């Protein structure tokens, strides 16, 4: 941390190597496929470089970077006045990506999951993404969101309820759950 705070390129590069996927994952979870994704990821690391001297404990770096990514994503969402999640290209369509036949069904389920998650509040969606999609620990996710652990628990509980109820009302998701519950991938 001290080396990064001094502007040591090797240290900053090492932080990038280790956490770039996490940061990009959080941004992608918030904004979806987006032209600005890599630019915003860079903003997150620049914010880290600027604030590195204030981070006393390197063990909090993961939640710190996730938190900065959440805030930058939230600002971007506010700026654009659009709410998107895993999915949409700037034109509003799912970008075509390499698929297997099974993935074609997955895309439909993914669209449905997007619709469900898009109905969550921004904070609740971020809570879901950090905890369940990115796999952050409770304390890490709470720190990233700037809320207490108990608040995060409440958000996750409500997110769980909303996601499961929403999924039950989406035929593609119901089919996805039925299929995967039978031992499918």
């Amino acid at each position, binding site marked *: 941390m001290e080396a990064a705070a001094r502007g040591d390129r090797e240290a900053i590069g090492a932080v990038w190597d280790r956490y770039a996927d996490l940061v990009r994952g959080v941004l992608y979870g918030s904004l979806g496929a987006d*032209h600005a994704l890599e630019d915003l990821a860079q903003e997150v690391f620049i914010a880290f470089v600027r604030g590195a001297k204030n981070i006393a404990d390197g063990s909090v770096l993961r939640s710190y970077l996730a938190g900065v990514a959440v805030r930058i994503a939230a600002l971007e969402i506010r700026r654009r006045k659009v709410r998107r999640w895993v999915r949409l290209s700037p034109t509003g369509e799912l970008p075509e990506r390499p*698929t297997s036949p099974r993935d074609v069904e997955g895309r439909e389920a993914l669209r449905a999951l997007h619709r469900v998650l898009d109905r969550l509040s921004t904070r609740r969606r971020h809570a879901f993404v950090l905890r*369940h*999609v990115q796999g952050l620990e409770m304390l890490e996710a709470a720190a990233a969101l700037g809320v207490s652990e108990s608040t995060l628990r409440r958000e996750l509980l409500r997110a769980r309820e909303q996601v499961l109820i929403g999924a*039950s009302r989406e035929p593609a998701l119901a089919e996805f759950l039925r299929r995967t*519950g039978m031992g499918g991938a």
Partner: protein
Amino acid sequence: MSEPQTDDELERLAALARRASAPDLGDTGRRLLRASLLARVDSELARAADSRRPWLWALPALAAGVALAVWGSHARSLSYEVRGAARDGAYVRAPSDHAVTVEFSDQTSVLCAAGSRLRVEETDPRGARVLVERGGADVHVVHRSNSAWTFVAGPFEVLVTGTRFGLDWDPVRETFELNLLEGSVEIRGPKGSGPVAVRAGQHFHGDALGHSMVVSDANDAARAAVAGAAPPPSEPNSALLPTDAVAEPPSAAPDSRSDAPARPEPAKTESWQQRITRGQFASIVAEAEQRGVPNCLNACSAADLRALSDAARYTGRAEVAEQSLLALRKRFAGGAGHDAAFSLGRLEEHRGALAVAQGWYDTYLREAPSGAFAAEALAGKMRAVSSLQGKPAAAPLARDYLSRFPKGVHVNTAREILGEN
């Protein structure tokens, strides 16, 4: 349809979300992005070093400064009076039907236009810090050897020692205008960008959303405003500078956005991205040409370059579109640069330069094999090869397309190449 209720089901939904992870960068992409970040870190550190350096040169003057500070602590801060409206703490609110004057004890005066609002944040013996929340003001700062005034409008900060100027801040459009009548000022933009020096007879136009700061001859700016166009002309003495700002919402009170003062409408209203969505393609190209296309190619944000390339393409200005896309390639590694390769392929294909188009599609597929335009790039390459070398040569590409994008919109073309239709 059964109702999902278990944690196991939630985990499977989360796993579904994880499958749609951010596009894989690949080794090349990772290296490019890492290098891009480190280059920017270098730039930030150099800027920080520049800002610290004056202190080294100023060390000999430190003793005098300390003495001045001691004197200053005993000197009285400037006082001020508000004429034309009741004083309300630090706020100065000009009614909608007449201007208000703020007179400081050093003879400096600020004439607030009708409907404007500002706040005198702090005063000291050498000057004051004045926050312009909205509207316009004519400022006359009386020069003294140690005077130091700061006027702040959104992310723009004007540093003044002695001068006369008019300013205008629109918090809704986040645009800042300054006409300098006497002396000189320095203006810092969002996130510490600048400073930009503005001299007597010059006009400054700052656009926090458009990420630009432009200094031009005041007469040209006035003519452009009268003509209803954006103020920055393409005069040789113009300077188009990026503000390098993340366009964060302003910290001004929300209600300041909903009650704009009565005054002439600023020329620029929306970002280029917003105007693209409104179909205002020709005006975007015209504005870029007015500023000077080379200036934009060197200084505009990635978003503006993308908007300009789209607008130029839609209006048949292929050369401007090509320049914009090449600038994106040159200046922005990663997503924006990769996508520009695909767009260049499209552009060349429409021009009929199929071999060149094939090269750009190849570039995109190499740099972003799983990118958002992978299907379109592969289809474009398939079309180009089919036209240039015949269907047998394109057959492997067609098979690849059908394998990777079995539901893609170019399935019929691929099957036709394979003779399956």
